[in-house]
Structures are given as structure tokens and as C-alpha cells.
């Protein structure tokens, strides 16, 4: 029982350092306040304990003191708030160009799929020093993707994508937990994130069975479901042209403009009449219930891969682009 008895979690990602810094500051602040209150109570209680001749002196109170111990805590709290908010912004804005992992959570297992098509259950192999962005959805109840070593946690909701990102800084094997109660095996829905050196990661990649890349299987699904009949890459078909759609601003029929991110693509596949692109009629059939989560994530990956210059060759800059220096997340 005593062989492995840590008192501090491993620090294995870029944001872990800043989270720990704020945590240590708050621990010191709380320790100082608790000890101060504890000492004051014991000193007052003992110094003015009830004994003969110890007459209590009535003190109404002092407004200055009240204002100081309202304003000072408030000022300290605002500092903590701003510091916490800065870290939160870093944690919630995935850097552009991060490698994407599609995560589908279902009652009591994690299904993870890499860009290149590798599928993993309850395991995630990533190279060290590479930005990784998880695009996650759930097939049933609310789960929560939690890796203590990276200090990241993000609930995974049914019916919608949520994203989380990290950049591992230390090779090793770290716990993956489900942090939102999801039923009988909630405590069994755990796994491992294996961070490897780039070379080791290469070996693992080639060793595994060859899968078609996600965008590839997305493309075959795109043809199979007949999407290409309306969404033509070259001419103006009955549906909007999808090349270069991802990340662009889309003008809708009812005047709103939205940014075409994963949730927009997903909703437009499942319930097309919700956001009709201006100039088009709502004739696209509803795919809710016809497309599984895996097929949906493949389609979304394919649509995202239709960038103007690479409209022909499928495959965004996944994890395997050797030689490309790990991009610095734009601050």
C-alpha cells in the first residue's frame, strides 16, 4: 500500500504548470487566513477567559474595520478571479492546427479515433510536444473526459460536440477518468493516455493495422449516402459547396450569420432545416437516426478536410506529419 503514495499529481502538460501555480497561491492564502483566524480565536479566548474580575467591555463595532475586511477580501478575490479566468481561456481555446482526436463516449467505455484512422478503446497514444484537440460527443448520458496529469476536464454531452485540448510535455502513462456520474460502471470507465517520444509513436503507428484515414472513410460515407449528388465540389449543385466551408462565416436564410464549426456541421447533417443557408431551399433529408456517431464524426472530419488547396488529397495535418516543428499555440 505504501509503495506508491503520491501527495501531488504528476505535471505532464503545458497548462498543468499554471494551474498548479494558482493552486499553490490559494493554498498559501487559505493556510494564512485559517491560521490567522485560529490564532486570534485562541488568543482572545484564553486572554479574555472568564475569571473573577474579568469584566466584558461592550464594543459596538467599528465601521472602518468592517469596510476594510470587506474591501480587502474583495480586491484579493478579483485578483484570483482574473488569474483563474486567464488560465480558463487558455484551457478552453484549442490552438489552430492541433491534431484532432474524435472521442465517442458511451456507457462505460471511451472510443477514440485518430485522424489517420486508428481506433482505440480506453487508450490514447499521443506523441509528446504535439497539440492534441479532442472533439467529443456521447451516445447516451453525460460523461466527462478527465486526465488529472494534464489538469483538463470537459463534460461530454449527448447530441453535441464539446472540445478539449492539451499538449503533453512528459512521456509516460497517465490516468484517464470519467468524472461525471454515468451509471453502474462509472468507476470502470477509465483508461490510459500513453505519451510517447515521436520515434516510439511512429513505431506504434506503423505497427498497428492499417486503417483508412477518417477523412477517407468520411469520403466513402459521403458518396454512399448520396451527399455528393447535391453538394458538388465544382459546380453550384442544389446544396451549398462544402469546399472551404469549415471555419468560414455562413449567411443563413433567416438573416443570422454563424461560424461553420463542428457543431454547425453536425446539426446541419442531423437536422438540416434548423439552419438553412441563404439562397437554398430546405430540401435536404433529415439524417437523425440514420447515421451512427462514428459515421457522423467521419463525415464531419471529411467536410473539414475539404480545404481549397487540398480539395483533392484527403488528410489534414494529423499527428503523423513528421518533421513539422510542433506549432506554438498562438497566444
Amino acid at each position, binding site marked *: 500500500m505504501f509503495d506508491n503514495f503520491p501527495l501531488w*499529481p504528476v505535471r505532464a502538460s503545458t497548462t498543468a504548470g499554471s494551474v498548479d501555480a494558482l493552486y499553490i497561491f490559494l493554498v498559501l492564502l487559505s493556510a494564512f487566513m485559517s491560521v490567522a483566524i485560529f490564532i486570534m480565536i485562541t488568543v482572545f*479566548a484564553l486572554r479574555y477567559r472568564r475569571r473573577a474580575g474579568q469584566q466584558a467591555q461592550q464594543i459596538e*463595532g467599528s465601521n472602518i474595520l468592517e469596510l476594510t475586511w470587506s474591501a480587502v477580501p474583495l480586491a484579493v478575490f478579483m485578483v484570483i*478571479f482574473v488569474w483563474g479566468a486567464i488560465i480558463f481561456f487558455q484551457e478552453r481555446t484549442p490552438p489552430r492546427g492541433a491534431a484532432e482526436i474524435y472521442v465517442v463516449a458511451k456507457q462505460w467505455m471511451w472510443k477514440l479515433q485518430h485522424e489517420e484512422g486508428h481506433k482505440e478503446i480506453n487508450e490514447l497514444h499521443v506523441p509528446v510536444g504535439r497539440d492534441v484537440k479532442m472533439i467529443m460527443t456521447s451516445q447516451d*448520458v453525460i460523461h466527462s473526459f478527465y486526465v488529472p496529469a494534464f489538469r483538463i476536464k470537459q463534460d461530454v454531452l449527448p447530441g453535441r460536440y464539446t472540445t478539449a485540448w492539451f499538449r503533453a510535455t512528459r512521456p509516460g502513462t497517465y490516468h484517464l477518468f470519467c468524472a461525471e456520474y454515468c451509471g453502474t460502471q462509472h*468507476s*470502470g470507465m477509465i483508461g490510459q493516455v500513453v505519451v510517447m517520444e515521436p520515434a516510439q509513436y511512429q513505431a506504434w503507428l506503423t505497427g498497428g493495422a492499417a486503417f483508412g484515414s477518417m477523412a477517407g472513410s468520411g469520403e466513402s460515407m459521403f458518396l454512399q449516402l448520396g451527399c455528393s449528388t447535391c453538394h458538388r465540389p465544382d459546380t453550384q449543385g442544389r446544396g451549398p459547396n462544402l469546399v472551404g466551408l469549415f471555419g468560414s462565416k455562413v449567411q443563413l436564410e433567416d438573416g443570422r450569420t454563424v461560424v461553420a464549426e463542428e457543431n454547425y456541421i453536425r446539426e446541419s447533417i442531423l*437536422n438540416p432545416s434548423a439552419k438553412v443557408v441563404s439562397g437554398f431551399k430546405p430540401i435536404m433529408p433529415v439524417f437523425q437516426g440514420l447515421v451512427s456517431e462514428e459515421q457522423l464524426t467521419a463525415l464531419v472530419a471529411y467536410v473539414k478536410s475539404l480545404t481549397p488547396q487540398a480539395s483533392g488529397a484527403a488528410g489534414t495535418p494529423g499527428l503523423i506529419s513528421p518533421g513539422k516543428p510542433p506549432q506554438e499555440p498562438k497566444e
Partner: protein
Amino acid sequence: MATAVSIAPEREHYLNKEYGIRSWLLTTDHKRIALLYLVSITFFFFIGGFFALLIRLELLTPAGDLVQADTYNKLFTMHGVIMVFFFLIPAVPAVLGNFLVPLMIGARDLAFPKINLLSWYCYIAGGILVLHAMLTGGLDTGWTFYTPFSTAFSNTAVVEAGLGIFINGFSSILTGLNFIVTIHRMRAPGLTWSRLPLFLWSHYATSVIMLLGTPVIAITLVLVVLERAFHLGIFDPTRGGDPLLFQHLFWFYSHPAVYIMILPSMGVVSEIVTCFSRKRIFGYYFVAMASIGIAVIGFFVWAHHMFVAGMSLYAALIFSILSYLVAVPSAIKVFNWTATLYKGSVSFSTPMLYVFGFIGLFTMGGLTGLFLAALGIDVHVTDTYFVVAHFHYIMVGGTVMGYLGGMHYWWPKISGRLYPEAWGRLAALIVFLGFNLTFFPQFILGYLGMPRRYWQYPPEFQVLNVLSTAGSTILAVGYLLPMVYFLWSMRYGELADDNPWDAAGLEWKTSSPPPTFNFDETPVVTWEAYNYDELPTPQEVHVEQ
């Protein structure tokens, strides 16, 4: 210990005025209703506590080897439901509040005595429903009932337990209604708002939360029940329902509910700290307004429970900054209590020990709340044992300490007997030690990343869990002691005179236990609150046995 039981001439008071089941089950006397609540609350407290012990025993070992996964999920769900809805929310308001509000105001009873009895019957009806749900298969949704698990994926008695909590909600609403109308309409002549005891200020603030918060969880649970029973689709993600809508509606009540739990205990602490240091409260106006501030701002902060739930980034910022505002009134209260001790004449009777424990533990609980309100840290520590430790420090370290302190302080007034002082101090010490050993390791566990509600956990967390389980057994002993010696004192305790602590306040102006109509003639208040300079200083109340 065998002090001779002095046979005082039997004076008529609310306990011996009438006997028999009917005199209890059909009473409209606020004091008897308070005792009805006392019995039923203690019953539920020991059930919830028993579940807590089972949970801690299961977590002694990393593997799930004491109970199965399903049973464990039902254990922590029922521990949560029973402790939150059937002990912590009603404890201080329904027992001490019901007994003392009319006495402290100088009235003969609450504004609506029959509604007060109806409130207890709602509590019992809700309790029976939840107990029946528990006995016939249990509930495994967690006390938070998150959808779509509670509406579509749980096959346990969600409908029955939901209706039980819904009916129990009326008990809170009716109690809150009674207190507000009584405090507004039935104050004794001369008892202006600035002379009101702080116990009443905190119960007034609590009643505001009860009245304006409880209906929202009532409608939320009704919608969950309708969705399970008649396939309505309000929370169903497959039909486009938003899983976060339930969380907004649930936490809109459930966060102010934690202030329903702590505010009354704060009132108790204000009464005790002034009496046992023979001094006026430091900054009366600020402490009173802090209670109202907590009640109002408490309604603006609920979504700090949802920072990682998929809420929008900017809304998280808004709720984080508001959560820091609500921390300020609590800080004011702690500083004012500590300042009240200065230049006082401090005695170390049992109620005061509980107050020292309360101030210390509530301070730590409040400070760890700052961790959770900081967005960056919340991402790491929410849904882990850090949160579990935080809210137990506030609920068990705060509310239960305040409740026990209040029970000891007003026990002579309630039962006409004195509790054994030595045993009282021993129990207070055991509770304090057991509590800290149970919940402090959980802070470390939380930051290490052990998630909540886990039936099995990785082996490296075992040592801290063993410490926590050890602490829980000590805490259990600490809670059993008062149960024993309070009952003992009912029969053999020394007879208490009207004002054993020489305390200020109208409730000490009438006899202990008070007559059914509280006062022989309507009292007139001419003194300021906590006028301990005009009261005789008591010689040490209890001769050390």
C-alpha cells in the same frame, strides 16, 4: 453523577399540559411541532449517517469488494438525498427555528399554527415516499438527478423519490412562509428591527431563500417525473432537449439551498458567541445585512457548478465573478464573530466549543470555495473529492456543528433539564477530531484527481482513503454521544431554571420549559439586542462533576 432528582412542584408547561398520541400528532403548538421535527430529523440523520459509514467502508480498499457497483451507487445517492433534503435543510430552521422564533419575538405562536403542522406532515409524507423508494430497490441517480441519466437511463424509483422530494419541498415553503409572516406581523411591542436577535435575521434570510428557491426544484422534479411517466421530451437529447437546461433549473435552487443549510447555523453561532463572551455582537448591522446579502447574492451564482458542463465561456466568467461576490458576506461574518471575542469574558461551555469548531471549519470550507470559483482550478478539481471535502466542511463542519451547538445551548429551555457538561465537551472534541481526520485527506485526494462517486479507484489513492475511513468512525462515535446523554438528561438531568446561561433574549425571560402560550402577558422590549452589560455575569454554571 447520580445527582438527586429534585422533585419540583409540577408546574404546568407545554410538555405536561396534555399527554397521548393525539396531543402530539394533532398539536398546533410550535414547540411540540419542533420536537416532532427533532425526532424525525434525528431518525433520518442516523440513516444517512449509516449510509456514509458504508460508503467509507467500501472505500477502504481500491477494489469494489464490500458492495456491488449498483448498491454503491444507491448508497451514495440515498446518503445525498436523505442528508440534504431530510436533515440539513430542515435541521436548524424546523427544530430550533420553530421552537424559538415565536419565543424570541414575544409572540404566543407562529402566524399560521395549522400550516406549521401541515409542514411537518408534508415532511413525513415526503420521507415515507423516499424511504419506500429506498426499500423497494433504491435510487441510483445521485442526489443531483442529472438528465438524461435520470430520465432515460436509470431504471430505479426516480418517479417515487422525485415526488417524495417534491412533497418535502412544501415543508420548506410553508416553514419559510410562517417565519416571514411571523417576523413581520407578530413582533412584541418595542422589538424593532434593530433589536431583533441575529438568530431571527438569519432565519428571515433563510426563509426568503426557501420561498423563492424551492418552487424551482419542485417544477424541475415534476418535469423529470412527467418525462419518465408520460414520455414528455423536455430534457431528452435525442429529441433536441438540452441536457444543460436541467442543470440550470436544478442548481438555481440547489446552490441557494446550501445557504438555507448554513445561514440558520450562522444565526445560532451569533447567539452563542455573544452569550459566552458576555458581549454585544461586533458590528450588529453588518452581520444582519450579511445574512440578507448571502440570501440575495446566493441566487446569482448557481452556474459555478457547471463550468465544465459545456456552458459557454463568457457565461462561466460572469458566474465566476459573481461567486466571488457572495464570498464577501461570509468573510464579514467570520471576522465579526472573532472580533466579538475581543475584550469579552469567554467561557468554554459546550455550545462555545461547537462555535469555535464552527468558525474554524467554516472558514476552511469557505476558503476552499475560492479554489472552486477560480475557473482555471475548477476545471481540474470539480467532480473530484476536493469538491466533496469542500461541501462537507461547510455542511458537516458548519451546519451540523451549529446545530449541535444550538441544541446544547437551548436544551435547558426545550427540556427544562441541564445536559452533563463534561460529556458535552468530550463529544464536541471527538466530533472536531473525527471530522478533520475524515475530510482533510479528501482535499489531497481531490487535487490528486480521484473523481467523485467512484466505487473502485486506482491503488495509489488508498492510504488517504484509509485515513478518511478511520476518521469517519470517530465522527460516528462523536455523533452518538449527544444522542445518549440528551435522552439521559431528559430523565435524570439537573432541573434548569429560567435562564441558566444568564443570556439576553426574550426566550430566556419565560420559564423553562415554557408554558403553552409562551408568555403570561405580552412582553415589552425596551433593551437593545445582546445587552449583556445590563445582565448579571453568571458564576461558572456547572460545578465540575
